[in-house]
């Protein structure tokens, strides 16, 4: 494996991508590709599609870095949203749904614990363990809404619970997450 570049703060990374795009993207890749690839594979599952999407996401970041606005949020949040939206768009696209590669959405949702994840080199291992403290029902609700792009009513139907319960679960799940990650 190649040597990992020094970890750069977000501001420096943004500047580097603007001024020396390929060096900047290489740094960005070292720092964030596991997180972005993780989200993508979580959503689309199929390896080849996930790799294409990862490339698409880096191209989008390079192309749109001028419109990233620090005052509106962290670079990491911005990139996660690009990755998540690209993957959900792909998941919903007709040609992807038609292909045999894709397993049913319901099935993939419940595969949350079947991780093909090799936890990455940044210090996330500890955090990942904390996240495991979240009850499975709370993980499932976040996975459906955040990673699968379900609406709350779709989630209610999928889990056969009332809409009100979905709303409460979302609120509790995120409050728990905030507690866990605020350590």
């Amino acid at each position: 494996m190649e040597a990992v570049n020094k970890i750069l703060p977000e501001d420096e990374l943004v500047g580097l991508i603007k001024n020396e795009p390929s060096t900047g993207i290489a740094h960005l890749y070292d720092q964030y590709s596991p997180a972005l690839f993780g989200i993508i594979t979580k959503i689309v599952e199929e390896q080849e599609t996930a790799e294409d999407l990862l490339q698409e996401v880096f191209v989008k970041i390079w192309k749109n870095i001028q419109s990233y606005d620090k005052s509106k949020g962290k670079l990491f949040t911005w990139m996660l949203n690009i990755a998540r939206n690209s993957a959900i768009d792909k998941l919903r696209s007709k040609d992807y749904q038609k292909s045999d590669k894709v397993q049913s959405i319901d099935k993939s949702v419940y595969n949350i614990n079947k991780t093909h994840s090799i936890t990455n080199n940044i210090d996330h291992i500890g955090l990942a363990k904390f996240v495991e403290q979240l009850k499975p029902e709370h993980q499932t609700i976040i996975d459906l809404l955040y990673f699968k792009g379900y609406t709350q009513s779709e989630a209610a139907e999928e889990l056969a619970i009332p809409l009100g319960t979905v709303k409460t679960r979302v609120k509790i799940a995120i409050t728990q997450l905030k507690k866990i990650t605020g350590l």
Partner: protein
Amino acid sequence: MNIEEYISSGILESYVLGITSEQENMEIEGLAVQYSEIKSEIKSIEQALNTYSLKYSATPPAYMKDKIVSTIETLEETKHRRDDEKMVNIKSQKSFDYKVLLIAASVLLLITASFYINRLSEKMNSLKDIVASLAVANDSLSQTLYAQHSKQQQTEKSLALLKNPMNKMVELKGLPKKPDSKAMIIWNTASKEVYVEIENLPPPPDNMQYQLWALMDGKPIDAGMIELPKDSSEMIKMKSIEQAQAFAITLEKKGGNPSPQGEMYVMGSI
């Protein structure tokens, strides 16, 4: 409004999860500009979900890094080449001054004409022809001048808007779903006039139209329908707006809606 109640209502969680409606999004983004508590609550929810996402971290295959970096290199090269070509085009356009050429041609025709009048009075007929062609040249010259004049007026109007110190410029940036969309608002805080310049928005479907909104205390105020101009650098005059904290553009049915229903493309706070 009661901020604590709003925060505990659960709507901000839904917003960060991306499951709120376009109208709710606008309200929340407007309120986030106004109330720092709401902004920091959104940030902490985002942070929580970021951390949750890391649970799924998965290292991509080693060959992906080279593949991606070399794709970016290729795209950069293509972009530079295109920029260079554009520069060359602009330069060659500038050095070719059509007006001067037309004037020179007219002057030349005049000289030739007077030469003929003095020296070859017997060739009156051909002289008439020359005068006629001179008139044609003059016509096209004045047409060119007229076209340039109206274009110049347009530019001067835009420049005056930009120079006026009462004018606030607001850059509307693409939302994560439409990151390359872009528009610019000029809002005169004295006369309350609003102008919009569309820098990049996808052409709307036939039955749809872009609508501009001003946001005040989270409530969207209709600022009019946008008639996309042929020339993208044109400033379009919109409805006057008394008070605003932010502006946004959504795609609505033709003729617009009293409150935003369609997808939001760009947004920017003042």
